[in-house]
């Protein structure tokens, strides 16, 4: 473990670290134990509570419970996320292109639109889609996700394009490509590659945001959890919460790992062959964009 803050430890520092680690470990375990006991005292670990997933009461069978969570719930979540991601990508490309248009009468309104949607809560946009535009719940959710994420994707793509070396554009113009051709065949593919980690992180954010559909009444995973607890009884909330959280974390964790893997792969490639002076800058700029993550 090397860090800015301290040198490689000597024997005394190592002893001290070991001692501190032991103390911290004991305190941590104690806290976990207290939490376990607290849950135990409310009988949250009782086998009967968890049997709702294996031999549920009220003449249901386990397959019904799991089907309602995984098939109806998770699929509804993923379907909204997938549809929204595709449309948002298209909207993002269009906005990014318009945002960089030369005539001010295109650029300025587009900047305003991007800033407008970036500054609003997604749930408000979803609610607007459902109640003001009369969209069905599924499309209301997609509507909110597309407007917000489209604006964010546009900004990510623009940052990617701006970070490319000027020579790329100049070379494209020199061989006679038009502005549009340059953008779509030269700049965009490189920008997408460069910003892939940010784009995948944004996909995680989008996937998490489908859960806002819960608030406007879209029957996604979280709503399924609630419906199950309403059917089996409120006392099963903790169990359904644990399972729901596990499902979400598994899906998003996989996506996040993908982002990290792409980042490593991207930077390894850059180090191997194509040297870009701006690489450092891009990497410094990218995390700020994504670290915020909703």
């Amino acid at each position: 473990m090397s860090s800015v803050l301290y040198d490689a430890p000597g024997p005394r520092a190592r002893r001290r670290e070991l001692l501190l680690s032991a103390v911290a470990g004991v305190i941590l375990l104690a806290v976990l134990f207290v939490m376990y006991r607290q849950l135990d005292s409310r009988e949250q670990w009782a086998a009967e509570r968890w049997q709702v997933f294996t031999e549920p009461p009220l003449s249901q069978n386990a397959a019904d419970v799991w089907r309602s969570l995984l098939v109806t719930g998770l699929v509804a979540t993923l379907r909204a996320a997938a549809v929204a991601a595709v449309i948002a990508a298209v909207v993002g490309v269009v906005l990014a292109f318009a945002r960089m248009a030369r005539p001010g009468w295109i650029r300025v309104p587009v900047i305003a639109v991007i800033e407008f949607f970036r500054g609003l809560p997604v749930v408000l946009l979803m609610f607007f889609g459902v109640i003001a535009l009369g969209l069905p719940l599924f499309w209301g959710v997609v509507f909110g996700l597309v407007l917000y994420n489209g604006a964010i994707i546009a900004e990510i793509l623009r940052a990617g394009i701006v970070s490319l070396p000027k020579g790329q554009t100049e070379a494209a113009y020199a061989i006679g490509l038009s502005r549009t051709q340059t953008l779509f065949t030269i700049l965009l593919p490189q920008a997408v590659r460069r910003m892939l980690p940010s784009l995948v992180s944004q996909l995680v954010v989008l996937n998490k945001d489908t859960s806002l559909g819960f608030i406007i009444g879209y029957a996604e995973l979280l709503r399924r959890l609630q419906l199950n607890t309403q059917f089996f009884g409120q006392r099963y909330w903790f169990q359904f919460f644990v399972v729901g959280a596990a499902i979400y974390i598994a899906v998003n964790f996989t996506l996040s790992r993908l982002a990290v893997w792409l980042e490593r792969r991207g930077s390894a490639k850059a180090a191997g062959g194509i040297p870009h002076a701006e690489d450092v800058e891009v990497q410094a700029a990218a995390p700020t964009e994504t670290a915020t993550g909703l």
Partner: protein
Amino acid sequence: MDAVIENLPLYLQGFRTTLELTLISAAIALVWGTVLGAFRVSPVAPLRWLGTAYVELVRNTPLTLVFIFFVFVAPQLGITVDFFVSAVCALSVYTAAFVCEAVRSGVNSVGVGQAEAARAVGLTFTQTLQAIVLPQALRSVIPPLINIFIALTKNSSVAGGFFVAELFGVGKQLAPANPSDVVAVLVGVAAFYLAITIPAGLLAGQVERRVAFAR
């Protein structure tokens, strides 16, 4: 439009609640996130694990699910509090993970040579931290922190879905009550959010430009 003007007091009430939610949660998240960030760069392994586990778990959980925990699950565990308090808990717990990441990358952004030079001239650990590392880390932490708090402002709208009458909650209540004025009612809500998020975004850009310095 009439619906907006008639209900202006309600809007202002909601705006106030949004501000309260945001500011209280921001303060708690700042403290808790900084502590977690310190854990993540500390030499004590169990603390580092705690920090990493917290960030990974919370960042991959939707905020709505965190709200569900504090509003629906906590009562089953014998914890019953006011909805406003639940909302503050959920927002702070969630935002702290992002603050932690900002703090960590801020500290790591300070060049290793800086601290090495400080130790070479004989500064102690505390002196190094106080005089060399933290002032530089702070500069690179502030712009992402502003962005995190902008996101927090927008996220506070989730509380509107969990029985707190903040701005979105007000819109959610007024819109069905004024079917002919739905668009105006919701644009009114949007205007209040933008009144916070756009100036804050401009501020973040400004600070970023000012803080960016040759390293």
